[in-house]
């Protein structure tokens, strides 16, 4: 029978031509005296000829360093340099504010398609969009849970279309519609009540009414000449009180906020510090 090819191989041959692609282990082509398997009692592991264990395992004989160098050299012609103007994350975000995330799935089987690959996630920072105060509040109300306040990121995930290209187009369409709709002011938006407000506004609230009422009554009982509301509003103590109430309502109750509120109330009602 024909002797194996290993007997005619040079030491300095081109190995990438023996194993150009991923292939199973061929004992007549690999000039190494490999043994694999559990030895028989008092024996040695079986040789490589007809050794099924060596065939079962995946081998990387086609990925030696010289072979990989050849792959890189061949691929270099298809590569372009990273644009030198985009050398920091901030610049990338400034020029390309919208980030698209897609996932590709690899598996082994008769079909390479995976329905999970159609999901597209679009994320953009609202500070990069041209929105005024009303438009930003309306946009946040429209998207609901998709907006994260801490990172100022709007994240839209689309998977209702069967293809990734369609889901991407739908995501961009959603962003466009949201942007244009938030700039429009509908007639019924004028019916916005205090419960719909996102943050606490002190002007025209019951806190302002109560404070002014109390101060006017104090002034009246002390028989001071008529002090107008504008003067009261412009006074230091009322401004202090306004700031502390806004801080309490918007940021919640912290040590600082409560202490600030206490000081401002004491100053407002002119109560001397208790020992």
């Amino acid at each position, binding site marked *: 029978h024909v002797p194996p090819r290993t007997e005619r191989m040079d030491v300095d041959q081109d190995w990438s031509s023996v194993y150009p692609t991923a292939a199973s282990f061929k004992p007549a082509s690999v000039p190494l005296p490999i043994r694999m*398997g559990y030895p028989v009692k008092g024996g040695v592991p079986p040789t490589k000829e007809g050794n*099924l264990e060596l065939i079962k395992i995946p081998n990387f004989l086609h990925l030696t360093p010289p072979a990989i160098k050849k792959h890189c050299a061949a691929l270099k012609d298809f590569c372009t340099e990273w644009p030198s103007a985009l050398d920091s994350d901030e610049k990338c975000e400034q020029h390309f504010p919208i980030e698209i995330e897609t996932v590709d799935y690899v598996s082994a089987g008769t079909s390479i398609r995976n329905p999970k690959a159609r999901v597209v996630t679009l994320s953009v920072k609202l500070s990069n969009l041209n929105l005024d105060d009303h438009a930003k509040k309306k946009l946040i109300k429209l998207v609901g849970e998709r907006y994260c306040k801490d990172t100022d990121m709007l994240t839209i995930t689309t998977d209702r279309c069967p293809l990734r290209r369609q889901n991407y187009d739908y995501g961009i369409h959603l962003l466009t519609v949201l942007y244009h709709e938030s700039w429009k002011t509908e007639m019924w938006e004028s019916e916005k009540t205090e419960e719909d407000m996102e943050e606490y506004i002190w002007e025209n609230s019951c806190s302002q009414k109560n404070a002014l009422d109390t101060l006017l009554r104090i002034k009246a009982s002390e028989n001071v000449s008529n002090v107008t509301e504008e003067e009261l509003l412009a006074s230091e103590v009322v401004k202090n009180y306004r700031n502390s109430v806004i801080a309490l309502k918007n940021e919640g109750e912290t040590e600082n906020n409560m202490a600030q509120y206490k000081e401002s109330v004491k100053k407002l009602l002119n109560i001397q510090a208790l020992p």
Partner: protein
Amino acid sequence: MAAPMAGWALRAMPRICPAPSRALHATPACLKARAARVRVGKGDKAVTYERAHAPHHIAHRKGWLSLHTGNLAGEAGAAERAVEDAFLRRFLAGTFPGVLADAAVLKRRANLLVVCAVLARGLPPAKLCFLTGYAETLLTHFYKCPVRLELQTVPAAVPYKYL
């Protein structure tokens, strides 16, 4: 006086034993302790490495004959791959009758199916070439994915042990 009365009452009651079942056992007996094991004999039976080791040696002394991603967490298609494997082994046993020295190893790379088989030298090379081409073309058309046959020939089936 109540206790002895109760005991006598219990003893007098007829014992209800479950009646012997005469139902038909339609499923075959599952002999798990005899699966994939070659029984020890006189010492004249040559056995390959694959057949000499029992299933509990898989992952310890034996590898897997079929490699695919179907059994990983979150992946689908394990059953389909198993059915394909069963069909492929029967097909190979029929295409190379008496020449297959050992079980075939099936590897799947994306949608490419690589069938690695070890054959004994019973057929002339021309017939072997024809049979590989025939098997590859037929299986490619049947499974609608590329199928590659990588064959190796040995003088005879390599014996590991004599049982």
